């Protein structure tokens, strides 16, 4: 009766050609593409699968870019966020297996789990969408009785109060026919899990710490950063402060520890000098979306235990 989705969770309508061809319009989003690729390789959703389909995924994005499609920024950025995560996972698999100690390793594990969780959630919705589709098609064969009211009953309706002028009708029509304000374009920052982060605020945090007098490593300065975005913001703040000669930077060797110290020459500096042009603050609705999304992920977070 209801057509079950394929065992791999892919939608039955996903292109079933034997070889993966980079059809550019087949996928409705990065998760869709990822699921499609995983099923194409007859893999389960595992870390291995994610690492293996990375190249296909990147190839798909390249192809899209080459084809010069007008591509919505939010879609592209979501694809890129996922591509970056996939690359990390692939790189991690290529490296010798080490101890999980590093902050970066932990961040990678979190990124992987988040991607798994979101992918599994998306797959669940895709599966029920296929069931809904089948039901809609099946139900489409039934036509409801919907006939004009027989005249003798229509005649019983209370006399219509209709005291409108032609001008009022014209005004109503004009209102309805005026194209509505384009709905606020959601630039889809939601997937960045990004609450607004102010570079200026981060500069203030850095200044407060450094003004205690002791030089601090960059690692120490970002140890309490709540998100990648905060790390980035602190880094941007440092660059600004360095330009303004508020701080000094020392690095003993390339890629070595970066040490930051307060410049005694600069006593009149305030964080107000820091530019804020880096981050157009996301609208509240989007911030809300990010939170909601995190809530979604939490709901299926226990999946980790099975990995």
């Amino acid at each position, binding site marked *: 009766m209801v057509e079950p989705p394929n065992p791999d969770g892919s939608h039955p309508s996903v292109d079933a050609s034997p070889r993966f061809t980079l059809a550019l319009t087949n996928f409705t989003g990065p998760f869709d593409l990822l699921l499609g690729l995983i099923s194409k390789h007859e893999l389960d959703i595992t870390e291995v699968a994610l690492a293996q389909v990375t190249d296909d995924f990147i190839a798909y994005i390249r192809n899209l870019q080459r084809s010069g499609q007008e591509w919505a920024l939010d879609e592209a950025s979501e694809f890129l966020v996922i591509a970056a995560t996939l690359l990390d996972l692939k790189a991690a698999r290529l490296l010798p297996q080490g101890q999980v100690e590093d902050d970066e390793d932990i961040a990678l594990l979190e990124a992987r789990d988040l991607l798994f969780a979101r992918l599994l959630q998306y797959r669940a919705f895709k599966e029920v969408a296929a069931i809904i589709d089948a039901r809609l098609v099946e139900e489409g064969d039934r*036509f*409801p*009785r*919907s*006939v*004009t*009211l*027989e005249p*003798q*009953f*229509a005649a*019983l*309706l*209370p*006399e*219509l*109060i*209709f005291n*409108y*002028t*032609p*001008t009022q*009708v*014209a005004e*109503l*029509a*004009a*209102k*309805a*026919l*005026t*194209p*509505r304000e384009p709905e606020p374009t959601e630039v889809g920052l939601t997937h960045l899990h990004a609450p607004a982060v102010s570079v200026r605020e981060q500069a203030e945090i850095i200044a407060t710490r450094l003004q205690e007098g002791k030089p601090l490593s960059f690692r120490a300065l970002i140890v309490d950063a709540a998100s990648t975005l905060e790390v980035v913001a602190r880094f941007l703040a440092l660059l600004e402060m360095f330009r303004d000669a508020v701080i000094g930077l020392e690095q003993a060797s390339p890629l070595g520890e970066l040490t930051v110290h307060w410049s005694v020459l600069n006593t009149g500096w305030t964080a107000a000098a820091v530019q804020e042009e880096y981050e157009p603050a996301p609208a509240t609705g989007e911030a809300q979306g990010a939170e909601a999304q995190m809530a979604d992920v939490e709901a299926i977070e226990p999946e980790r235990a099975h990995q």
Partner: protein
Amino acid sequence: MSHAADHELDRLPGGARAAVEAILMVVDHPTSTMELASTLALPVDRVNRILTELRDEYDGYTGSGPNGASKLGEPRGFELRNVAGGWRIYSRADFADYVSAFVLDGQSARLTSAALETLAVIAYRQPVSRARVSAIRGVSVDSVVRTLTTRGLIEEVGTDPVSGSLLYGTTAYFLERLGVDSVGELPQLAPHLPGLENLHDFDDSTY
């Protein structure tokens, strides 16, 4: 459209009789024996026989006897009537009081703002399909179109040659209630209504 031959129809549960019922139950306009016969690919006289039998059966007779119907069961709450050159199912007249009570329950003498706005759009864009009005208003207008039709303010004026959807226009009653003689007397919409020229962007086929 090529239809199944009548033996195919006979394989469906209820057969040709049920097929006729299926159509009659959802059509709004009286349907002629010819139309039914050609859609079902059945001989006209067979359709005629089915229609007569159904009418009698709904009335509480069976049509099985060779010499016409004999009283058997109870009548149904609906009846099949041959009017205006076609057949249509109506609620049985005996229950008119109950049906009236049901129809009147919760009916308002005023149009909702959704209905008014839909009416205004139809007035200025007629003939126009429901899908297009929906696209313009951004919400489904099926139920308000039904109300406006019942109220005699709009009516079906044809079908779209491409999509086959029904097209609606305003009625003489609407003009009369508004106090104008023709649609041409409605005030011009502001000629510079921004973006009005883009209205054809609402492509019916995408809805």
